[in-house]
């Protein structure tokens, strides 16, 4: 992310992902209430449908991007020593990337089995 772009772009990403997550959470909550009771087999059935698993994947991408911008903002505000900030930003990036890969793994495994 270039120095120039990281202002407007980050702000835009934060807002678009927020709207997407809000919509997904609302629809998801209604869906979960309507589909009770939920078991592992029911969940696996949902995961086999591309519409569900793709939306879940998108939701997590949105969540990770949103978290990246938000936590980056907090670090820029409060962490002044540049080396500590880079260390914490890297830690955050690895943490978020790890979580993202984990979600991808879950979605793929649910598709295969």
């Amino acid at each position, binding site marked *: 992310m270039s120095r120039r772009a990281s*202002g407007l772009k980050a702000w835009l990403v934060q807002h678009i992902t927020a709207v997407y997550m809000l919509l997904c959470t609302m629809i998801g909550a209604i869906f979960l209430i309507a589909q009770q009771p939920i078991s592992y087999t029911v969940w696996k059935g949902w995961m086999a449908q591309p519409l569900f698993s793709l939306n879940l994947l998108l939701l997590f991408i949105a969540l990770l991007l949103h978290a990246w911008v938000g936590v980056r903002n907090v670090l820029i505000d409060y962490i002044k020593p540049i080396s500590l900030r880079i260390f914490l930003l890297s830690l955050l990036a690895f943490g978020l990337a790890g979580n993202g890969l984990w979600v991808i793994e879950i979605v793929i495994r649910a598709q295969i089995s």
Partner: protein
Amino acid sequence: MRFKIYRYNPDTDTEPYMQEVELKETHPGMMLRDALLALKEQDPSLSFRHSCGEGVCGSDGMNINGKNGLSCITPLAELKEPIEIRPLPGRPVIRDLVVDMGDFFDQYRAVKPYQIRKDPQKDVEILQSPIDRDKLDGLYECILCGCCSTACPSFWWNPKRFLGPAALLQSWRFLTDTRDQAEQERLDDLDGPYKLFRCHTIMNCLDVCPKGLSPTSAIGKIKELMLKKAI
């Protein structure tokens, strides 16, 4: 009337302290500035800035019972006792209620708060329609007292890199001025994570503005314009 006033004289004090003082005589309609002047007669070492006494010069911004404001237009009768007076938050204290506003004015200077014209200068006025002129209402009235920027946590954390609400209000004042011709340059100057985007819409600025202005909406409009020009 009881007061608790922040006192600090770097020549004699090792650290700041709160001084409790009492003002015996008050009169109806008395403003806080009048009270401070009366207290200064009791103790001439009390330092604070003030000038016009009617909310125009913007010299006497201070933190009054936890909220920034101008002492000259703050009626004493509206304040809860003991009235706690502190310097504007987040700024280095020079003495008592006098703070260093250097960063604040540097940021104001940075937004180029003047009309930039590219067309050759003519010897006639540059006219505006009444509708275009109305766009400047709520922006030009700023008196640069600094109450907003010193109430902004983002400005506390990054006073050298975040422009702060006062400077951003002025930035929008010139961006929206139909006579100004440097829109693109102004927007380019504002991009990046610091100058504009440290604003997290906390809205302390519009809560404290003694002139009732809204830097928050001005900042929102700058972001909107930036987005329009980027897409």
